[in-house]
């Protein structure tokens, strides 16, 4: 089969899966829908591998293929087609997305087994994968925007999956609204670029990029607006507040959408739009600085959060900050490399966290966890591998990808050194908060669920409660199901986590500095028009020093976490630190007051404006003037006319006679 066919098949399987699951939700029993969904994504992944081979068969110059299904509109100046762009970058993204998605589907088959919304879950999940693949395969801005919006919608559906939980629906709405802000940015940014290049098609638009002068006003505006889109999707400051709240969704959703795939769409977007960003370095620098700010802010919050999933969520934000910083510093390969390794180890961490949460019967608070090491050896092993990769300990995958980012960022420019150094500070904090989480959940005296598990039975809470608010829930549709499933007992969860653990451990070999550069060579055709791709290269000494510093920081971070949370069971040092640094601790624990700031600056003024519109504008202007004016005139006029309609026949006859007589007299007078 040809490359084009594979490209379309990649899209077709998840779509067919969604439709099939949606239509047969009554016809098929039990777990069938889970397996259909998993199979659809696995077939999509197989097609992606087919596309990879077909792409490699082409000559290096020809590895950018646009395939058009049909034209939506080809009028003057607009070429809206349904087209896919198959090049190394999109195939790389497709492989990561479909591969990780297939494993997460497999994990969900068990994890969601007792949930009453099982079928709905897989229909949504397949729809999400379809949207995400559409986003990364898009061959023009038009399809990109469609995929972008679909992904936001799928994210909303899945965050609010337990729709009877008020906290979950609120989180879904928040995510959707912030994503729509990003959509608007993307659409407006597209407009600014389209205005000059005159084509929606990526390849033709990229050719037009060279015609912009450097830092052209429209181009910088367009790129900044694209960055707004990327930041909303990728949870960068200040559009990040939805991501921690999105942890209200089921854990596989957090693993798939809010760690491995959707939130990396912004990174993909910036890498895809590199011809524009290189022509507008001012916008790219803004992106790099915000990426760096995000990675630091998220890491500091991660140090103090006590919700297991939110620790990983903030770590996701922080890691995406690294990627954004990389692609905005034109170190594309390192950014995308980190995207891939992050997809592996972050999905793994979420899955392990899901297993722990299941063992705790839905409880997510780290304060109530402890001592799961012996009770859940497999989960513990996976968490350790994920934690080592995330902290950047050699030779795990995160070590190579993160240090490559930092070395490239430092090599980029003079002032980028500051960003690189701050990145190292962030990587130290990453090690601390990751291992704080692991030590608190798995070390120390076993809590009751852990003891029960060691004795051989799974802990069940006396009553089901919302972990965020403590409200009592039932287990019917719209709430989590009654049974919880842990990796130790379910083969599908075990297989998914095991495969990801292998990826998280060994994916680093693709890009060992000075040894292998598989990704760099592979992605070359997508970046053939980049000015920095071939030339941006850290010096040998910088590379080795960077690797050494990264490894030392990671190990010392873990060591400090060990001293604070394991070697000191009463945690006197931690509480001492907390007491001494009260303002700093409050700042971190309140998440740098971003929710409050956004609430005061955006939400409240808008709500006030809305109330004003409702009370004054709507009531006085619309209801009173616009609607009331004409309708009042009609009513008054008709009341006058209605008075003549008395119903007395004789009265009508008299009117008729008088009228006729008057008419006759008029004509007589006029004639004489």
């Amino acid at each position, binding site marked *: 089969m040809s490359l084009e066919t594979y490209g379309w098949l990649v899209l077709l399987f998840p779509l067919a899966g969604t439709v099939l699951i949606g239509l047969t939700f009554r016809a098929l029993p039990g777990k069938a829908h889970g397996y259909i969904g998993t199979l659809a994504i696995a077939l999509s992944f197989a097609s992606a591998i087919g596309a990879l081979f077909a792409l490699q068969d082409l000559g290096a110059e020809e590895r950018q293929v646009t395939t058009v299904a049909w034209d939506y509109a080809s009028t003057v100046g607009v070429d809206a087609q349904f087209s896919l762009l198959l090049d190394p970058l999109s195939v790389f993204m497709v492989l990561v997305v479909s591969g990780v998605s297939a494993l997460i589907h497999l994990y969900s088959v068990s994890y969601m087994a007792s949930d009453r919304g099982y079928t709905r879950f897989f229909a949504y999940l397949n729809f999400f994968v379809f949207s995400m693949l559409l986003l990364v395969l898009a061959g023009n801005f038009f399809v990109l925007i469609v995929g972008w919006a679909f992904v936001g919608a799928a994210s909303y559906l899945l965050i609010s999956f337990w729709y009877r939980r008020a906290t979950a629906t609120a989180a879904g709405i928040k995510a959707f609204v912030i994503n729509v802000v990003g959509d608007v940015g993307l659409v407006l940014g597209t407009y600014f670029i389209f205005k000059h290049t005159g084509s929606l098609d990526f390849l033709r638009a990229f050719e037009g990029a060279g015609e912009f002068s450097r830092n052209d006003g429209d181009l910088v505006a367009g790129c900044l607006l694209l960055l707004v889109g990327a930041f909303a999707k990728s949870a960068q400051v200040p559009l990040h507040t939805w991501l921690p709240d999105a942890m209200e969704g089921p854990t596989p959703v957090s693993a798939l959408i809010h760690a491995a795939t959707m939130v990396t769409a912004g990174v993909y977007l910036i890498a895809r739009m590199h011809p524009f960003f290189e022509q507008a370095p001012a916008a790219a620098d803004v992106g790099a600085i915000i990426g760096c700010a995000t990675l630091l802010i998220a890491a500091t919050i991660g140090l103090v959060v006590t919700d297991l999933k939110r620790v990983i969520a903030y770590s996701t934000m922080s890691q995406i900050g690294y990627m954004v910083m990389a692609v905005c510093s034109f170190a594309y390969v390192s950014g995308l490399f980190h995207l891939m390794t992050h997809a592996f180890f972050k999905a793994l961490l979420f899955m392990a966290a899901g297993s722990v949460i299941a063992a705790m019967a839905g409880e997510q608070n780290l304060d109530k966890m402890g001592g799961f090491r012996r009770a859940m050896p497999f989960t513990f092993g996976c968490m350790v591998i994920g934690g080592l990769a995330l902290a950047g300990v050699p030779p795990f995958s995160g070590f190579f990808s993160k240090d490559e980012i930092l070395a490239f960022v430092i090599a980029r420019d003079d002032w980028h050194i500051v960003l690189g150094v701050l990145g190292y500070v962030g990587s130290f904090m990453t090690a601390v908060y990751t291992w704080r989480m692991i030590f608190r959940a798995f070390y120390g005296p076993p809590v009751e669920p852990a003891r029960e598990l060691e004795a051989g039975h799974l802990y069940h809470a006396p009553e089901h409660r919302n972990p965020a608010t403590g409200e009592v829930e039932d287990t019917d549709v719209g709430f989590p199901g009654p049974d919880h499933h842990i990796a130790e007992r379910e083969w599908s969860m075990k297989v998914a986590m095991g495969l990801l653990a292998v990826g998280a451990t060994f994916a680093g070999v693709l890009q060992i500095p000075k040894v292998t550069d598989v990704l760099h060579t592979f992605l070359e055709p997508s970046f053939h028009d980049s000015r920095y791709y071939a030339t941006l290269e850290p010096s040998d000494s910088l590379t080795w020093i960077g690797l050494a510093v990264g490894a030392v920081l990671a190990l010392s971070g873990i060591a400090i976490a060990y001293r604070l949370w394991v070697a000191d069971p009463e945690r006197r040092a931690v509480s001492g630190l907390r007491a001494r640094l009260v303002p700093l601790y409050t700042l971190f624990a309140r998440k740098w007051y971003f929710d409050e700031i956004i609430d005061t600056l955006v939400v409240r003024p808008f709500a006030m404006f809305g109330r004003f519109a409702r009370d004054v504008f709507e009531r006085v202007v619309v209801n009173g003037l616009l609607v009331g004016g004409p309708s009042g005139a009609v009513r008054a006029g008709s009341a006058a006319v209605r008075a003549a309609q*008395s119903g007395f026949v004789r009265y009508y006859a008299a009117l008729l006679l008088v009228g006729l007589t008057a008419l006759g007299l008029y004509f007589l007078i006029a004639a004489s």
Partner: protein
Amino acid sequence: MSIEWYLVVSALVFSIGAGGILIRRNPLVILLCLELMLNAGNLALVAFARAHGNQDGQIFALIVMVVAACEVAVGLGLIVAIYRRRLPIDVDELRELQG
């Protein structure tokens, strides 16, 4: 005899009919008064036809009679329907179609 006399009689009959419609409340009488008015018109038509010496007016008078016959049929039908429904036979009482 000059045409004036015919026209005076015609006007007189027409006025009696119109006055009757305005004054009386019994639908049957109103129908009769209508007939009076129509016949006053007929008289005027025939008188003019004769004065001008052509037959058009007489043909019109015949058509008016046809119309009058139809109208009487409809009017009497209405009155019978009113009677059967035991509604008051008084046009002032029958005023449900007001605006």
